[in-house]
């Protein structure tokens, strides 16, 4: 006789009457290894996580996909560590950011040093849009700017993830913002300064 847990709601992927909560989906994955529940959770949180990965790895879509895949593996392996007080999407994006930082670090690009130029490729005099300006930053600077200004991490959280001090994170953010501003279209730069 199969074991039935009354507190676990069975997830039916075809049921669109009421969207299942993240908590119900996580419970179904943990206790039943439900593929239907994972499919819903994946569709709900992958797009945003992919964007996080894409920004940190510098706009490489294939690397960003690898990051998201690894992030799901880590997340599903440690679902018991997700605290229901926090939003699942934010928890998962934290894991994704962590994996993306590891990827950049392994490639030897994550250098956070005051002597390192904040710009990865020199194209003086070329105006850029915001996306190109951020992607043109050296990986370490880009990571700090993306994590703080786009993803909303605090300097303390960034420091912990990157293995630097909060003061270094603030300093790198300051430099990264200046470089990005200097590369934005002239009209926007004048408004910003």
């Amino acid at each position, binding site marked *: 006789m199969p074991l039935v847990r009354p507190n676990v709601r069975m997830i039916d992927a075809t049921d669109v009457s009421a969207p299942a909560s993240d908590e119900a989906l996580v419970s179904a994955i943990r206790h039943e290894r439900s593929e239907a529940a*994972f499919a819903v959770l994946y*569709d709900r949180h992958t797009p945003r996580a992919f964007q996080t990965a894409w920004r940190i790895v510098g706009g490489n879509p294939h690397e960003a*996909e690898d990051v998201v895949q690894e992030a799901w593996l880590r997340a599903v392996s440690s679902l018991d560590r997700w605290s229901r007080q926090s939003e699942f999407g934010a928890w998962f994006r934290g894991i994704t950011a962590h994996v993306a930082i590891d990827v950049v670090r392994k490639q030897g690009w994550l250098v956070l040093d005051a002597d390192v130029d904040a710009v990865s490729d020199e194209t003086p005099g070329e105006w850029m849009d*915001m996306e190109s300006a951020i992607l043109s930053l050296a990986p370490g600077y880009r990571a700090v700017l993306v994590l703080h200004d786009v993803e909303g991490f605090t300097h303390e959280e960034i420091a912990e993830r990157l293995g630097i001090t909060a003061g270094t994170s*603030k300093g790198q*953010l*300051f430099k990264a913002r200046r470089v990005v501003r200097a590369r934005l279209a002239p009209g926007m730069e004048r408004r910003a300064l």
Partner: protein
Amino acid sequence: MTEHSFEEWTPEERAQLADVGQHRSPRSELKGRTMRDLRERGLLGAAGSRRAQEFSLGRMLDGYEGLLFNMSEVHASPVASV
């Protein structure tokens, strides 16, 4: 000194920042690839559940007991026949 004492973005820049990467999305095959990987690791799918049920403590003890019994039978027979 607060974090906001650094050069802040203008509202227009903030909107542009939030838009960075927004139109990017992974290829559809990533979902299948990820689910296959999770299945292979026993984290997803019926195979994982079955394996977990098969390897319950009771079944493992029964199996171990049976193994010990068989071993004792094998080694006991020649002694008994002498």
